């Protein structure tokens, strides 16, 4: 079997396992655990979308949450039921009042419009690199935030945007996660994926062998933005109501923590990072609320979980800057013997 075929097989196995979880979990597990699995899968989509540019192409974007926010609002505006739209968003243009889209089409439109936005934004910004692009994309995030707060005809401004039908269920999120993983795996482990890594590792050498640096970066950026928009739509339909500050620096920070902790050059690493950070912050959040061990009562410490996460992040930066997985993929032995695995094994020694 070729390497590409093995990866496809692996993704298919993951798909079946995911489907089993998606449809089995609600019958077996408590609502609390189902909610945690759903949030992990949702964050995995968002982090995977981020990994494409930040990890594989080396364009460290701090602005992807802007795309998530755009996706959430677009999907929300499209799918609020017609009879509520008049009351909630009275100043919408007439044609937007006339219809309301079901969940799937709204999500697709949100993803596509977000990708379009990424083309417009990415075309100038993908010329930058290193810390310049981080700063510029952060500027983009702030601009999105200001627009969301001020375009109150569409977004209700800084007030809570509400009325979005709660349609995000575990099978939906697992389905989209499978699609995201599949598309990204095909993209990353293909000739184009090698072009992306070449651009990341040495821009000049990459352009010397004829790889279009701008084109490669732009495709990665736009694909990532599409899945960010989709993830934003899922997020919107999970929360039901949100505000511009839902999609700002706090979310950026937590997604980046997940990505960096898991390993930026690895798809499964991204998922591992999401699982670790999500479980850890769930535990820390319990501690934060205060708990009693025997006679010893720990008072509520608000903000403590964020401090611990911050310290873990710094420790990872110091002692394991490539994250838990680095460039390796978690393959459960299925792709053993392939070139990449051997190389990383050697690098470890």
């Amino acid at each position, binding site marked *: 079997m070729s390497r590409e075929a093995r990866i496809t097989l692996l993704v298919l196995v993951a798909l079946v396992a995911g489907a089993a979880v998606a449809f089995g979990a609600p019958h077996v597990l408590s609502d609390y655990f189902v909610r945690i699995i759903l949030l992990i899968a949702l964050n995995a989509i968002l982090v995977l979308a981020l990994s494409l540019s930040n990890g594989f192409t080396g364009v*460290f974007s701090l602005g992807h949450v802007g795309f998530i926010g755009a996706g959430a609002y677009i999907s929300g505006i499209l799918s609020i039921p017609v009879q509520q739209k008049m009351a909630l968003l009275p100043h919408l243009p007439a044609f937007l009042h006339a219809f309301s889209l079901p969940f799937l089409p709204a999500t697709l439109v949100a993803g596509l419009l977000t990708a379009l936005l990424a083309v417009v934004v990415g075309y*100038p*910004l993908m*010329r*930058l*690199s*290193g*810390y*310049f692009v*981080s*700063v*510029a994309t952060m*500027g*983009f995030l*702030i*601009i999105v935030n*200001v*627009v969301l707060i*001020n375009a109150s005809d569409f977004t209700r401004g800084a007030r809570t945007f509400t009325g979005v039908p709660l349609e995000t269920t575990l099978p939906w999120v697992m389905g989209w996660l499978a699609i995201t993983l599949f598309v990204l795996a095909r993209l990353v482990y293909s000739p184009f994926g090698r072009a992306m890594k070449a651009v990341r590792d040495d*821009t000049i050498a990459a*352009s010397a062998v004829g790889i279009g*640096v*701008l084109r490669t970066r732009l495709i990665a950026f736009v694909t990532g933005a599409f899945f960010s928009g989709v993830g934003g739509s899922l997020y919107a339909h999970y929360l039901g109501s949100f505000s511009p500050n839902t999609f700002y*620096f706090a979310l950026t*920070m937590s997604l*980046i*923590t997940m990505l*960096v902790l898991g390993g930026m050059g690895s798809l499964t690493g991204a998922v591992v990072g999401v699982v670790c950070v999500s479980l850890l912050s769930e535990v820390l959040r319990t501690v934060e609320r205060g708990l009693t061990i025997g006679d010893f009562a720990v008072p509520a*410490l*608000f*903000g*403590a979980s*964020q*401090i611990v*996460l*911050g*310290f873990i*992040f*710094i420790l990872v*930066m*110091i002692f394991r*800057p490539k994250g838990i997985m680095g460039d390796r993929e978690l393959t459960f032995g299925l792709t053993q013997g392939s070139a990449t695995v051997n190389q990383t094994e050697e690098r470890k020694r």
Partner: protein
Amino acid sequence: MTQLDFILQQIVNAVSLGSLYALAAVGLSIVFGVLKLTNFAHGDVMMVGAFGVALLAGIGVPFPVAVICGIAAAAVTGFLIERIAYRPIRDAPDVARLLTSLAVTYIIENVGILVFTSSPRNFPLPDILNTSWEVSNGAITFTSINLLTIALTFVSLLLLGWFITRTTTGLGMRAAAEDMSAAQLVGLNVNRLIVVAFIVASAYAGLAGILWAAQAGVVQPQMGFTPLLKAFVAAIIGGFGSIAGALVGGYILGALEIFIVAFLPSAVSSYRDAIVFAVLIAFLLVRPGGLLQPNREIKL
């Protein structure tokens, strides 16, 4: 109120706001100059300075003493940040250091929330600084704190100018900013210079934070965020890493913000921050070295 008075009033506002931005941007530029590190935690060091003053003045310490202690607290915070977080990863790639400083921001902010809760507190400004002044029959007004901000900016920047051009340590800092390994080769203690740079930058952050809180009238743990972003834009407009650039950028940004609000229709001016950050992106694209360093190269 005549047209001229209106314009003069806006200029007064712009100079006052610009001084604040310049003061905040200077510290960011000192650190970037020496370490090539974008120190996101700068805004939180400002917060530490402001909280120090609020707490000390709140328990009855005389205001000037509280200000000096606040600046000292900020300087100590900067020193600790450098020791604990930045020194171990000094040779790491740019992005790793950027992320570390984001994590530091996150930690300090949440420690602030843990200790002080996230609700805003009053900043205890003495009455003497709260008085307002009127010129031209009340057409132009400003407060003592506006004047003090402008004055302190000039005095402290003259002091900084003296420090980096006339003292051995200051010259050493400039040498390290120019070429770290060459500075090490000629026998300069680079570690010590970096520590000094952090302490000086954080002291400026403390001063800027105190003045910022004095103008806003409140302190809260998240207050460092907005000034950090503004200082950042100012530093990039002027030329990141250059102290004169931070000054120029601060005043340009102050003027830009005031004039957007004063002269553009309200439908546009509510997008002020979006316009400011669009200017930032434009600068990064067209003139990444800022106004004062037009020739700095940028790689695709």
